[in-house]
């Protein structure tokens, strides 16, 4: 019964004013401005809207943005799990430092990341010069986009999986072992299933972030239309040509996709919480 009463603290002051301010601020900064895009795009009419968002150059940019974001998130899924595992399970010198460093992509301004990665992967760069003779071009190609997106999505999987891994009780593994499971079986049949919600959440977060990313990509991408031009850049290009309606149309297409992703992320998190009851 304390559950019933505890959550209903009738006497705590400030509900009206804090909720009121929250809603006002949220509306002014986020909701009303965002809805402006939808209003603006209705001016265009359905046919020209559709023509804009399905123009070949735009479709090519979707392919790149989605493809690279998906691949980057997949790479981060694998390596994020590995890094989280290593950080939680093993002890080695410098572990805490590295743990702190994982958040670098959150803290490092994207423009800095962009020029740094370009400096590394340009044909004359630190890494690029060794790849060049092998016929591998990274900077100024779609591969460069992938590299930038791996960088900015790196912390997501690590940070969603880490706490779950930390909470997993050793008894579970010991129980599996006592029932005759090998280490491999324990990992794939006991540990991995309980990590799935966190892994997928991290994946979806990294994917969503990569999809909208701009700063780190434009330096390394080369920005060739139809080849290495990401969707956010197209929006900017249209804006610079004063094609507001066109820019808005593409923005709306991206927003719809982002909201769908957000919905999926919420469902995943809800799933994860339910599993952990």
């Amino acid at each position, binding site marked *: 019964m304390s559950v*019933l*009463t505890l959550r*209903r603290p009738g006497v705590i002051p400030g509900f009206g004013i804090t909720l009121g301010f929250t809603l006002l601020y949220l509306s002014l900064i986020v909701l009303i401005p965002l809805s402006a895009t939808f209003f603006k795009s209705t001016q265009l009419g359905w046919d020209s809207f559709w023509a804009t968002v399905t123009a070949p150059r735009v479709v090519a940019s979707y392919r790149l943005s989605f493809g690279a974001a998906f691949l980057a998130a997949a790479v981060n899924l694998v390596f994020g799990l590995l890094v989280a595992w290593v950080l939680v399970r093993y002890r080695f010198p410098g572990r805490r430092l590295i743990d702190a460093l994982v958040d670098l992509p959150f803290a490092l301004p994207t423009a800095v990341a962009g020029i740094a990665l370009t400096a590394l992967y340009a044909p004359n760069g630190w890494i690029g010069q060794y790849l060049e003779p092998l016929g591998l071009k990274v900077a100024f190609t779609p591969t460069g986009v992938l590299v930038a997106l791996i960088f900015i999505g790196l912390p997501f999987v690590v940070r969603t999986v880490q706490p779950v891994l930390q909470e997993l009780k050793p008894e579970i593994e010991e129980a599996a072992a006592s029932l005759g499971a090998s280490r491999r079986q324990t990992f794939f049949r006991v540990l991995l299933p309980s990590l799935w919600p966190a892994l997928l959440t991290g994946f979806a977060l990294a994917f969503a972030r990569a999809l909208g990313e701009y700063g780190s990509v434009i330096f390394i991408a080369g920005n060739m239309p139809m080849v290495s031009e990401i969707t956010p850049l197209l929006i900017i290009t249209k804006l610079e040509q004063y094609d507001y309606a066109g820019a808005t149309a593409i923005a709306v297409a991206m927003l719809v996709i982002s909201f769908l992703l957000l919905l999926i992320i919420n469902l995943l998190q809800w799933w994860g919480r339910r599993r952990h009851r």
Partner: protein
Amino acid sequence: MSIIIENVNKHFGGFHALQDVDLNIPTGELVALLGPSGCGKTSLLRIIAGLERPDTGSIRFNGEDATRQHVRERGVGFVFQHYALFHHMTVFDNVAFGLTVRPKAERPGKEEIREKVRELLRLVQLEFVADRYPNQLSGGQRQRIALARALAVEPKVLLLDEPFGALDANVRKELRRWLRRLHDEIHVTSVFVTHDQEEAMEVSSQIVVMNKGRIEQVGAPDEVYERPATAFVSRFLGSVNLFHGRVHSGWAHIGDLKAPAPEGAGLVSGAAAVVHLRPHEIDLATEPAGSIGVARVSSILTVGPMIRIELEREGEGREDGPVEVELTRERYLQAPLALGDRVFIRPRNLRVFAGT
């Protein structure tokens, strides 16, 4: 300070937590609100405190209406179930908090506050922890500090929510006695919530038994134990064996036994009646005279000074399950039993209630 609660109702969403509650708490009493979880006792306590507002009804302190009064002005001391100590403050600052948040004009001087806190810590016998933080205290110590903090504002009423709930058995026993003594010393009207009937019996001067948002009975501990007003109270205050029967012209008939049916209580002729028999209020006889039923001994256990005997009923009432009997060792040794013995259940004392 007396507390009068009149016609209080409280809903939480669709849940009717308190239904038409009337209660009169005289000055200086130490009252237990006793009941199972979800019975509304904590809600009632929080309404008295002003932490919750009733949907209907009123709360009066010393005859003055306090229903609309904010918890801040009500002058109650509230001890929370998990103490709710401010864990970023030392014990001293915790106890002093209520004094230091007063408006400048009413705030006592620094030295005065220090003296007062010291005095309170002496009262709860924890002077030596003044500079510690709550997380450096044991559960029992935290409990006493929570009490000292509540007392610092010189409350007119002291309210305690499951004050011993989170403590282990030994500490709990000690603190109960201590609370009783403390109350004798300071005599402030106090109400505490508990689901433990033993605790209520041991500590309080009045027990309010609650069930499903209603008050079932109010009385001194002996009274509610010896003369439970309802079947619920009887069952909640201790284990009972049930026997079913019917009422005929003022008498309840159970097996061969006739017992006077209490008036009122809906025990008209033809109504179903249920008899409650406590395990220690049963004699086992070899003769049927005055017995309520017959049974066979199915287990005999020695539990400290008591012998606990379980009986398998024969004939009617089998579906009511086995009958539990408790005999003192001396009494048992006067007529020892063996497994499978056939015995007659003879009540020394019984209570008749309406219903099944």
